């Protein structure tokens, strides 16, 4: 039995996977030339993604001993003498092989409290400490972009993530029910909301975005992605079937995001969230709970890459998480909250190079507080480098407004 899902329904299913997309739209300007076409996507993996599973340091002599039954070996997808990618990351591996994906294997925010919520706040606000500011750094980055035109922020998914909250006006779109074009209600409500500082602008942006969404989806409905619209749900599918289905949904989400970004006047900056990386128990190795989640991540990235087509060369994608996990396996086949993790950097115009940042190693003496992978790179430095080199933000705006109090975190330059 097969079920034909509409794109909207498929995306609605994405909500069940904990997937949501958030976009910052910035109309492209021909006058600004190349910079106006540059695109940045930040993927946040929530829950504390285990970097030692995402990019296992299979060549590190202490890795197998610490990771025991969570350790990956020959099944991992090799990158160099030390590092590999998790076997679920086939698409990322293809990109890495042609120099379009790199890894930063020991990166962390300045936060050390090991609290999800505090660490996500710091990751998303770009502040040096928790509660340092209430807006998101990706939102503030818009103010520093070279092209000074009306800027629109857009989130896909019903709730707004911190990373895109702030002074740049934000819109959002959700793959639920569409708007009845005949109804008078939208117009009447806009009138009723005219003095409401929250609901007025929000509804106006929601209605405008809905129109863009129709175009973004119709542009994608014909062409390469159409075969994926048919999903197997019948008996015999079992767990594997659900996984495949989840990956299809994730791939479509990436493809739709790409469609948004390719629209004329579509977003130049986007953020996307993936939940479910808090693997305290039965984390699994090549297969299992974490592998499934990584499969979704790989599918989203693949959908983005494929959907962007020629625009891939104008795009940088950064995948980051709030913290890594303990270097040792815990008592329940999982890992607890840790410190450093891996960030992935992908894009069509990356410069060649090895790992980003240093590898501290896994010797007991090298571990942070004798339990976690030690950070060698400040996450803010990575973001600052990408914003400067790829998006053309100037150094002063970066230091003053996007990442205040971050001078010690030197920008990672030369990635693009």
């Amino acid at each position, binding site marked *: 039995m097969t079920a034909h899902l509409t794109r909207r329904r498929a995306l609605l299913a994405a909500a069940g996977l904990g997937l949501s997309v958030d976009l910052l739209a910035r109309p492209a300007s021909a006058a600004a030339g190349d910079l106006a076409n540059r695109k940045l996507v930040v993927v946040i993996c929530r829950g504390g993604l285990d970097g030692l599973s995402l990019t296992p340091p299979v060549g590190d002599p202490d890795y197998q001993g610490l990771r025991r039954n969570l350790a990956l070996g020959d099944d991992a997808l090799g990158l160099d003498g030390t590092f590999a990618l998790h076997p679920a990351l086939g698409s990322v591996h293809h990109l890495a092989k042609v120099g379009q994906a790199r890894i930063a294997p020991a990166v962390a925010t300045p936060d050390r409290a090991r609290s999800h919520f505090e660490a996500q706040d710091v990751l998303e606000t770009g502040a040096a400490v928790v509660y340092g500011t209430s807006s998101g750094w990706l939102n503030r980055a818009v103010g520093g972009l070279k092209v000074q035109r009306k800027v629109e922020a857009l*989130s896909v998914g019903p709730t707004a993530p911190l990373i895109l909250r702030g002074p740049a006006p934000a819109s959002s779109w959700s793959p*639920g029910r569409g708007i009845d074009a005949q109804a008078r*209600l939208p117009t009447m409500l806009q009138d009723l909301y005219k003095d409401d500082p929250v*609901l007025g602008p929000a509804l106006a942006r*929601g209605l405008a975005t809905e129109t863009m969404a129709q175009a973004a989806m119709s542009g994608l409905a014909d062409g390469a992605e159409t075969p994926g619209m048919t999903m197997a749900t019948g008996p015999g599918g079992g767990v594997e079937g659900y996984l495949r289905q989840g990956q299809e949904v994730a791939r479509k989400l990436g493809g739709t995001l790409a469609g948004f970004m390719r629209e004329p006047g579509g977003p130049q900056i986007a953020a996307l969230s993936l939940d479910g990386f808090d693997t305290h128990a039965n984390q699994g190795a090549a297969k299992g709970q974490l592998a499934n989640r990584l499969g979704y991540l790989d599918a989203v990235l693949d959908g983005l890459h494929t959907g962007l087509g020629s625009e891939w060369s104008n795009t940088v994608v950064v995948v980051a998480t709030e913290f890594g996990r303990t270097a040792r396996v815990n008592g*329940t086949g999982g890992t607890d909250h840790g410190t450093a993790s891996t960030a992935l950097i992908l894009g069509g115009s990356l410069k060649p190079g090895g790992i980003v940042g240093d590898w501290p190693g896994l010797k007991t003496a090298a571990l942070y507080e004798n339990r976690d992978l030690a950070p060698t790179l400040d996450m803010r430095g990575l973001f600052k480098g990408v914003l400067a080199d790829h998006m053309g933000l100037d150094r002063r705006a970066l230091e003053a407004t996007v990442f205040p109090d971050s001078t010690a975190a030197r920008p990672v330059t030369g990635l693009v």
Partner: protein
Amino acid sequence: MRKEPVVADRDLDAAIAVTRFGLGAKPGEIAGARSDPKGFLTAQIRPSGADQPRTNGETSAQRIAGFRVYQQDKRGMKRAAADGESVPDARDPVKIAQRMLRDDVATDFVARAQLGAGTEAGFRERWTLFWANHFTVSANKLVTATVVGPFENEAIRPHVFGRFADLLSTATTHPAMLLYLDQVQSIGPGSPAAQYLSRPRRGAGAGAPPAGRKSAGLNENLAREILELHTVGVDGGYSQADVTEFARAMTGLSVGGFREDPEMPGRPVFRAAAHEPGARMVMGVRYAPGGKEQVQAILTDLARHPATARFICTKIARHFVADDPPPALVRRLEYAWVESSGELDHVARVLIGAPESWTPQPAKFKTPYEFVVSSWRAAGGAPRDIARLAPVLNAMGQKAFSAPSPKGWPEEAAAWATPAALVQRMSWAQAFSEAVVRDRDPKALAAEALGARLSPPTATAIARAESRAEGFALLLMSPEFQRR
């Protein structure tokens, strides 16, 4: 026309009592609260706690037992599949799981929404929902998907007007919470159970444990979240060492399996053999060796810690009054909390009595659940089945019983009042109004739903509506109905 100020205040207070403290007004409710708005609310406080939704009566133990059966079947099916046998649909664990998830979660959720839509004690239910969110157990995790409802009914509802210490202890040691935050598998590294599991075995090489063998040891998830989310808060002054010590103390708290109780697995058990022996030091206090008593002593101290009073009273003020709550209100609640050693009925009375709670301007944007339930109340009805609830809540970002993390649902308008969510609310309000309004006058329904809070622009817009359904949809989407 001039009105007596006292009369005007009482009309507004009645509207605030029902809409801000409760779940929105049913027809006639604001009028009923008018003679004594505060008394209308305090009368809802009662020692026996919250109302119980009309569910199918299944306990969390029964649900957990059901899940264990499913897990056994799943293993059986894997073996059968490996042997090339086909499994009949009735025994297909994936289908059983789907059925359980669908039916049990739906039954519980609909029962709760029906209680919310119909109750005469809206404040009692709102107060309960606050605590259920404070002690979040989410259906996001497969193993806890079917116990969110029973957890709320067993661990939260009976204790919402009792001592916080009792609520804390019941909620954090309930099997649903132990499963949700991975406590069940946590084993003291120095316990007899860990020694037994790590004993040398024939054929096992040195170093790594043999393949397929489950590792045994500490899991600090629940201990950390109790400190961070349930009691003192992230700034409460604890360290990583306190988390680890607390996690050691908590070892042994678990959920019974078939071995302990073949009749009914899923009940709470204390496995003394898995408990880490020895004294513990948590936040500067030494706790003598002991089993359950040791955990209990730590929880009791955390319940009466001053940081707990401040953290939770701030949350209460934020939930009921404003995202950025008035400091005077927080101080009042905190004083009431400390003075009464965390008697929650007293804290609730002080919340109701505080002048800061009655500011005319509504500051809180309703969550999707609050919006949907209050819409049903305004219409004078209740959702019949899950199909009336699940799609709309999913679209607005609040999937039934599925808070995204142990922190629960967000509280701030910034999270909910997004462009996409507003478009979803509007689409739903339109369809809902067409289905429920029938031949009723939307102007009268608006007066019943908002009382003195109904603004002239909204009243005018409703009066000018082209159809009854359009008028009712305007009411539901009006700025004052979206807020409380």
